[in-house]
């Protein structure tokens, strides 16, 4: 009798322990869940029945598509379980009472359009299919890699596939169901495999800083067509950094592990068809300007203190670019320029968590604290 009770108690304890684990693992399995220039920026729309318009220049994809497909995993939610915002509505800055000054926004200034996308909305949707300056675009955010990129979408829209590769959001286009890892901006599966997307610059900054720079900005409103508690971030917090964003562990194995920096350290990177280079964001903030190269192409990373963000430019080899010690201007051959207005072609600088950047671009150069 006693033995039976003891055994029963042990079984109950075991059940309890398993129940605890299962209970803890239940429910909110929300896993997904920079910018640049491909030379196409004439504002013309290219409606296409077969997916988004192709980029003129494809960025590096360091792995075979088959390897990337094999490394693609389910993040938990089904296809469209994280719903993209397909009918966004905007409000003027003065009507954005739902945004606090210190909250992060993804800012876009494109032609006549200036728009801010609050991160607290993006974290629940990851993709906003919008139209800026007459051009159909998608503004995308992957919480697990900390990456924001803008793409032209043509006549189609992008959705969240529910899959991840290297922890990064895998998008799908609703015209062909091809699969597009966000950072790669290149399809790795489906009819458009190998095609790259046209990208445009987006900026990761705070609402206060964006509004100060662009007082006329519009803001994506919480009227997304879905109901969510937009103050609740399933992954943690950015103010202050907590949860997934602060912890160095990742949920999924990176394509490549690189311990030159802690995994969640923020870097600003650029990639070309030939390779990739990156700068530690805090190092760039300290230096103001960091020179870099990919192959025989020279790039200048420039910090913009007013936005606490960075930009990248393609710079001719012989032109001196330096931070001015006295103000926030950047000296180009001695002449002062605003950090976001250097007289060079802008390259797409992508802010990312280091593990994600290094995973996608294992041969990347890195400029960081010595």
């Amino acid at each position, binding site marked *: 009798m006693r033995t039976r009770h003891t055994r029963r108690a042990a079984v109950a304890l075991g059940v309890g322990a398993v*129940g605890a684990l299962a209970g803890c693992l239940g429910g909110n399995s929300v896993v997904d869940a920079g910018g640049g220039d491909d030379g196409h920026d004439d504002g013309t729309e290219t409606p296409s029945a077969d997916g988004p318009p192709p980029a003129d220049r494809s960025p590096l994809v360091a792995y075979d598509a088959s390897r990337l497909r094999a490394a693609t995993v389910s993040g938990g939610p089904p296809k469209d379980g994280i719903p993209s915002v397909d009918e966004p509505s905007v409000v003027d800055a003065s009507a954005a009472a739902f945004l606090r000054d210190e909250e992060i926004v993804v800012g876009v200034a494109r032609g006549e359009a200036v728009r801010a996308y609050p991160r607290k909305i993006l974290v629940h949707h990851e993709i906003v299919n919008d139209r800026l300056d007459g051009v159909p675009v998608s503004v995308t955010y992957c919480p697990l890699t900390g990456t924001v990129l803008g793409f032209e979408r043509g006549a189609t829209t992008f959705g969240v596939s529910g899959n991840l590769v290297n922890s990064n959001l895998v998008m799908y286009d609703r015209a062909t169901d091809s699969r597009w890892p966000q950072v790669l901006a290149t399809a790795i599966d489906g009819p458009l495999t190998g095609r790259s997307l046209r990208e445009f610059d987006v900026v990761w900054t705070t609402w206060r800083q964006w509004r100060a720079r662009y007082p006329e900005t519009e803001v994506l409103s919480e009227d997304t067509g879905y109901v969510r508690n937009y103050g609740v971030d399933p992954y943690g917090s950015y103010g202050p950094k907590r949860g997934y964003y602060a912890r160095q562990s990742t949920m999924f194995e990176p394509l490549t592990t690189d311990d030159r920096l802690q995994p969640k350290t923020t870097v600003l990177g650029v990639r070309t068809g030939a390779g990739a280079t990156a700068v530690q964001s805090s190092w760039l903030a300290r230096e103001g300007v960091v020179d870099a190269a990919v192959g025989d192409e020279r790039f200048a990373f420039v910090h913009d203190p007013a936005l606490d963000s960075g930009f990248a430019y393609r710079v001719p080899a012989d032109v001196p670019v330096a931070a001015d010690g006295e103000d926030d201007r950047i000296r180009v051959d001695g002449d002062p320029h605003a950090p976001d207005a250097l007289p060079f072609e802008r390259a797409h600088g992508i802010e990312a968590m280091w593990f994600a950047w290094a995973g996608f671009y294992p041969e990347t150069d890195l400029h960081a604290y010595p």
Partner: protein
Amino acid sequence: MPTPDRLRRPARTVKAALRRRDGQATFLFGALGYPLLYLASIGHLALGARGQSVQVVDDPLSRMLRQTRPFSFEPVARVAVDPVALLVSPLDIGVALVLAALVGANLAVAVVVWRSPAACGVERSAGLLASVPALLTGATCCGPAILFVVGVGTAGAGTGVLLTAVGYATPVTALLLVGSLILVTRGTAAVRTDG
């Protein structure tokens, strides 16, 4: 494959426990508290709302069937009453209520057994242990977030296994709660209802 008697016994025990005041109070505590915990943990119940408002999505009947995660569905309305905001997902609320009834029943039996173990023919410790899954399933919530909490680092295949487990956690939790009732009431005498 449990015999009908194995299922009837826990049902009888739960009924008997619910005829006692302490059992009723404990059941209500679990059954009312658990849904709040569950909805808060999946982000459907949150603080920080300002003012009072009700939003309803277009076409709620079809929207409520759209899955956002395994065993979780699109909310169709948001009710805000300063400072609380509730997302109304009928199916999620249904899941929460089913689990809440099981949690309440587990707690009620555990408390009754703990207060009068001799009457049930169960050791006090066994009754207490039975309440463990009920108490801990309150964390049926955080999905992969819990992986960060328990410090799962860069895991390869293991993470995939855990995430697969996440998807089935809700039904597994329900089965565990039923299982713990069956285990704890196995071979018990009827619960006394006089006190």
